């Protein structure tokens, strides 16, 4: 793939919205208090901490009249895209701008709300508004309409690989000169069915059910990307140089963010015992305390890497990042895919030097 310039990032999660909030959260300066929801599974009743994201600040970008039509999934996606566009300043919209929205599960809350309308009122009174917003690419449609992005538009779902495939596709579109810029991101929303699933899988993987401080999360994160050019000014957050899919192990030479992720079918573990010995002296990131457990956590790892490169901060907060502090020019984000046998993972290289 060609190197991509990262010009803007729009993160939205339980920590807040925008890069300033993300920066503060990584520094341990934001106390995130999850909501608590009671979930009853086959094994018992649980108070599940839910890391909800607010889309309130979307009102800064979109008239409230227009927001009435949007569900939470589309709102979070639109807010992430708007923040990335604002952060990149300016993002030129139109036919030479592309849009990619990746999601592990899509607008599940709206899908189940549609089913509520069927179950409560009968097939004949199913809600057309809920149905059209439950379609996987509804969020992409709302973003395109708001920004008048008339270039290629893709919605995809590929479990924990969703981010890698979104970024690879973005790189291909830029390389083939179909577009000049792109808003590319992920979004996933919480609903109680997902909470039920999350708790049930936790129980399956660890029947002892130790007390946890984290639970399912929701949020979105968008990048504004363009082709990296040798003679252009250095982009705000450096370059995404390379993505490797399904490799056996991460590189040993560069700084490495090891995200303690699980897989799309099993819960991630934040138990320190689960960190492989080989990664214990590498950068480790723990975002479950600030965003909850997200189905596509790698996007937030990349945003963390970008911020570390951006101001070479000393992110040594016990809450989110562990030692050693970053000193180099390139960070690899390593996302293991525990469900693949033999175990493989995806790796993303972010650097502040044009290669």
């Amino acid at each position, binding site marked *: 793939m060609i190197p991509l310039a990262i010009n803007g990032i729009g993160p939205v999660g339980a920590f807040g919205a925008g890069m300033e909030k993300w920066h503060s959260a990584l520094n341990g300066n934001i106390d995130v208090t999850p909501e608590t929801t009671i979930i*009853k*599974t*086959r094994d018992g009743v649980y108070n599940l901490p839910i890391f909800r994201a607010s889309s309130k600040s979307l009102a800064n970008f979109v008239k409230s009249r227009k927001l009435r039509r949007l569900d939470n999934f589309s709102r979070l996606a639109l807010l992430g895209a708007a923040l990335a566009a604002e952060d990149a300043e300016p993002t030129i919209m139109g*036919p030479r701008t592309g*849009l990619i929205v990746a999601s592990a*599960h*899509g607008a*599940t809350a709206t*899908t*189940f709300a*549609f*089913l*509520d309308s*069927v*179950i409560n009122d*009968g*097939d*004949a009174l*199913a*809600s*057309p508004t809920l*149905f*059209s917003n*439950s*379609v*996987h*690419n*509804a969020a*992409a*449609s709302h973003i*395109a*309409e708001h*920004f*008048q*992005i*008339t*270039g*290629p*538009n*893709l*919605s*995809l*779902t*590929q*479990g924990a*690989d969703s981010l890698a*495939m979104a970024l*690879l*596709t973005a790189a*291909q*579109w830029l*390389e*083939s000169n*179909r577009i000049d810029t792109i808003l590319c991101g992920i979004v996933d929303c919480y609903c109680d*069915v997902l909470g039920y699933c999350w708790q*049930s899988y936790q129980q*399956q993987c660890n029947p002892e059910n130790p007390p946890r401080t984290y639970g399912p999360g929701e949020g979105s994160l968008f990048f504004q990307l363009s082709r990296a050019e040798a003679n252009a000014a250095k982009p705000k957050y450096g370059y995404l140089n390379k993505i490797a*899919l*399904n490799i056996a192990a991460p590189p040993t030479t560069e700084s490495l963010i090891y995200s303690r992720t699980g897989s799309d*079918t099993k819960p991630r573990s934040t138990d320190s015992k689960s960190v492989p010995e080989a990664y214990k002296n590498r950068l480790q990131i723990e975002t479950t305390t600030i965003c909850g457990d997200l189905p596509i956590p790698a996007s937030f790892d990349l945003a963390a890497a970008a911020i570390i490169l951006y101001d070479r901060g000393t992110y040594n907060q016990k809450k989110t990042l562990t030692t050693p502090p970053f000193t180099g020019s390139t960070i690899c984000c390593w996302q293991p895919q525990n469900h693949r046998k033999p175990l493989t993972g995806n790796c993303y290289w972010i650097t502040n030097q044009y290669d």
Partner: protein
Amino acid sequence: MKQRQKRWVPITGIGALSCLGLDFGSTYAALFKERQLPTLPRRFKLGHKISYPVFELPPSKLDLSDPREPWLRTSRMAIAAATEALTDAGWNDLSELKHLKVGVCIGTTVGGSMNDEKFYRDFRDQKTPDMQPINRYLNSNPAEVLARVFSLCGPRLTVVNACSSGTDAISIGAEWIKSGLCDLVLAGGSDELCRVTCNGFISLMISDPQPCRPFDQSRNGLNLGEGAAMLVLESEKLLQQRQVSGTNPRSAPPRAFIAGSGSSCDAWHLTAPHPEGRGLRRALELALDDAKIEPEKITFINAHGTATNNNDLTEGKVLKELFPKTPFFSTKGHTGHTLGAAGALEAAFTIAMLQEQKIPQSSGFAQIDPQIDHAPTKSPQTINGTFALSQSLAFGGNNSALLISLGED
């Protein structure tokens, strides 16, 4: 020997199944026969005063609904189509694929949706449902399933662009070949009929209780269908290697080529196309530009033609303006609207029609709509040309077009 431009992507195999048949041969042949009419869904019931017929797959082992079945019907249909496509491309020994960069890019709608109705009813009723339906959904990502079944190690991507998913998946797969990311790509689409989707389309008041009539003045909506279609795309380098090593039993050249593709969003409305077809027009222009082909060279257009009022009006207007003399038709009168599979199924038909130099009647059409003022084919025709377009419009304002070529003389 047909010539082609360097950036065109060879299509070496096709596999498909639909209401018309459980393989591509029978599916394709039925397009030129008397139309089979849609029937009431066999596998589920709908609770409406009026009956809405669908185009369902013929009874087969795919109907088995063993609760232990690890994959959704959508993925099982995708496996059947992919198996046929790989065989068609001469990949009889699938273990050879392990040594190649093989990607999978599949379009779907239902196959990417967590919407098991029974599970949800039980959840609502506090019955703490078994996780099997969720396990099946999580295990059934169509691209992941195909990669696992055929032991492929390349990129895998499930496109969920609603009704243009199949077309977009093929376009992305072709890019993977052009960029060198893959040696071979399984690209296509798959979608099953389900109650949730049927109720959704009925709620939008775009389902017709009668057999659908694309582009006809009396059209009154679509009939949903189900099916899957897969193309095998290969790099020129791989084709040459296979010919040298003798592992390709096909004596003929590739079936056809993806010569170009274009995609553009209306950025207009969630469910309605732009009234002047802004996005479709641009998608078609991009596809022509990508292939470096003049519009006059297009022999026919396999239109989206769902039979909804808005879609056919927009599509008909654009085709009249950009391709006033080029024959066009919709095959949805035969297959129904297979959603995420539609673009792939229609691309497969387009390839075979180019190869056989004939196109079918646009089934369901009888009377020209004065608002469109452009009529699709009324009877099968022989053609003489090497380029054709297959296009899809979708929810969300997506418009995508594939330009397919036999190669030039």
